[in-house]
């Protein structure tokens, strides 16, 4: 990873859930923490999210789900990333996620789950300590 390149984060709202407070707060917060943040807005299909993550060449994908549809939607996003050989993207999940679903989500490949009350700093620390994921394989990307 290019040292000068800001870590790029895509924040997204999969499914039809319209609660976007958390997503927007995290987007603003990570931007202030020095990340390059893109917010997709509401109602994105897993395919749209995977495509956006690849097109925007992001390092981190943050999903926010408060509707209870997190297991199915997250699975589809992760499978989609895998199918496009983009599974090096760090996948984070926020929203209303019951405690008992967390093991299944981690098993699925979610790198971390951040529920209500999480300080932005915890999320940014997590991202910085987990990236770059495998530096030797990372291509150097020169941005104009």
């Amino acid at each position, binding site marked *: 990873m290019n040292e000068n390149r800001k870590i790029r984060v895509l924040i997204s709202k999969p499914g*039809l859930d319209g609660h976007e407070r958390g997503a927007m707060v995290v987007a603003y917060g990570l931007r202030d923490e020095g990340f390059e943040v893109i917010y997709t807005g509401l109602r994105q299909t897993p395919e749209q999210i995977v495509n956006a993550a690849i097109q925007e060449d992001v390092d981190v994908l943050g999903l926010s789900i408060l509707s209870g549809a997190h297991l199915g939607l997250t699975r589809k996003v992760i499978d989609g990333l895998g199918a496009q050989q983009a599974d090096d993207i760090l996948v984070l999940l926020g929203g209303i996620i019951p405690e008992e679903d967390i093991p299944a989500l981690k098993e699925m490949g979610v790198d971390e789950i951040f529920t209500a009350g999480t300080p932005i700093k915890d999320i940014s620390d997590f991202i910085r300590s987990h990236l770059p994921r495998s530096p030797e394989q990372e291509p150097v990307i020169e941005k104009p």
Partner: protein
Amino acid sequence: MGRDGYIKKIETAARQWEEQVLGPRIKRFNLAESPTRFYSPLNVRNSDFLEKVGFPGEYPYTAGNSPFDFWKAFAADAAKTGYRPDWGGAGKVGKYGGFGTASDYRDYLLRMQSMGRKGGPNIAFDLATQCGYDSDSPYAEGEVGRVGVAIDSFRDFQVIYEAYTGDLDIDKVPSNYTINAPAAVIIAMYATLAKKRGIAIDRLQGTPQNDILKEFIARGTYIYPPRPSIRLFRDICVFCTHYLPRLNINSIGGYHIREAGATHIQDLAFSFANGIAYIEAGLAGGLDIDAFAPRITFNAFGGSMEMYKEIALQRAARRIWARILKERFGARDPRSMMIRQPITAHIGCSSTTLQRPLNNLARAVIGGIAAGMSGGIPGAFPPFDEPLGLGHSQEATQLQIDATRIMIYEAKVADVNDPWAGSYFMESLTDETEEAALAEMEKIENMGGAVAAIENGYMPRCVAKSAYEKQKLVEQLKEFIVGVNCFTSDNEIEVSVNRIVEATYDPERMKTAEDRQKKSLARLKRERNGTAVSTALKTLCVHARDDSYNLMPDIIECVENEATLQEISDVLRQVFGEAQPIKL
């Protein structure tokens, strides 16, 4: 001594107090300013009681909508008979709910009724329905029947109402619908159901949420852009005023805007800006203000732990709305000027914490006290386990109801109307709240009103920014939340209680809901008269292009011919276009 002399005397005393008492103390603790405030008559110099407060039930309703609420009249009887508000009663609004397919939800309702819980339907729709998609849409995948019941067509609607017959027929119990963008379709289904049952549609009662503008500011279940959405609102408003006069037209949600992060001032200003847009739409539809304004309702203002501000907000809200209706819109009927809301002050679900969740009971009680002191039922809301996201447990619900009862019967919180009337502090805070909200409303007015302030992104962005500002205050320890950013050391203990979440539905049934719903939708599409459907949809399409048409009769025609909710929505999408998500 005259009024001037009296004020002069207080001014002198205030100066002396600041110099000799307050100042030295601030210095002693090495502070920049006092951590508390004190109010005296100097803070409410121009307060005219009759103009600003008035008696309860009299303009401008600062002291309340009525001398006493209906529930106060029955409070003692309710205690003697053991009435449980969460069960609902025949003729009353039932508990908010909905899941799975229409038959899943019908069976649940029948089960509840057999246990004595007989409130009218208060329906939560799944997200696909709320966003105008049928269960077989790719957008609906994984969402069918999840946060509410799936309604694809009139058939589904009819199945739910199989639980409401006889004493609970639709001319006897009210129906509440948490539906916004497709509100016209659901109201059309309600009217169609009445016709099929041989009930005059003017007997129908209830409340559709039908507050589309706030969906762009909070909650997010919009379909069409704001302007055509307002046209649909106009059509509903005019149609209901003429033909369903007992149905409330909408329920304006200050609460949702606050939950999305708005400050209390933004909550007031944005809700009223939306309210004004609805009133203007009704007037543009040719209605007399007093013919429909009494049936514009509010969901709830409120949503913070700051009880003084919440009390002032309720008082200011009533005064602002009353003045808007009377002075700006020339209303004459007092009912047009009143804010009718089922929930008043409360803490809002976003004030609850996942950390040490039992503390949320204490929090909810604070909200209940604020409600009881500002003209509402002193209700503890929500149950403490709200943020756990697993459904409210029986224990949490019991504690919530008992807390409410303790406030009513033991603490007698609501025995005095507007107990803060005349308080130097509260009158001054109410004035400040009113002034700030009016200033914010003027800003929106200058942009061209609520619709313009949504189109240019102003209101949604303000709310997102306020949410972030609040988060920063919490993270910078300028605002404290117990158990979240303070008092979190190892000396504190987790307090837990037993929690049994009532099995509202069979999880096995939920797993198959999407499949079953898609199958019944496929069957509908095979069985119905396709020609009749496409004729009805075509007529709707033609009339939608002409703003002078009221679309309700056409939508009813579509519903009667079993066009689906998405088919109707798609026709309107084609004509009106689709709203775009808000960018940062």
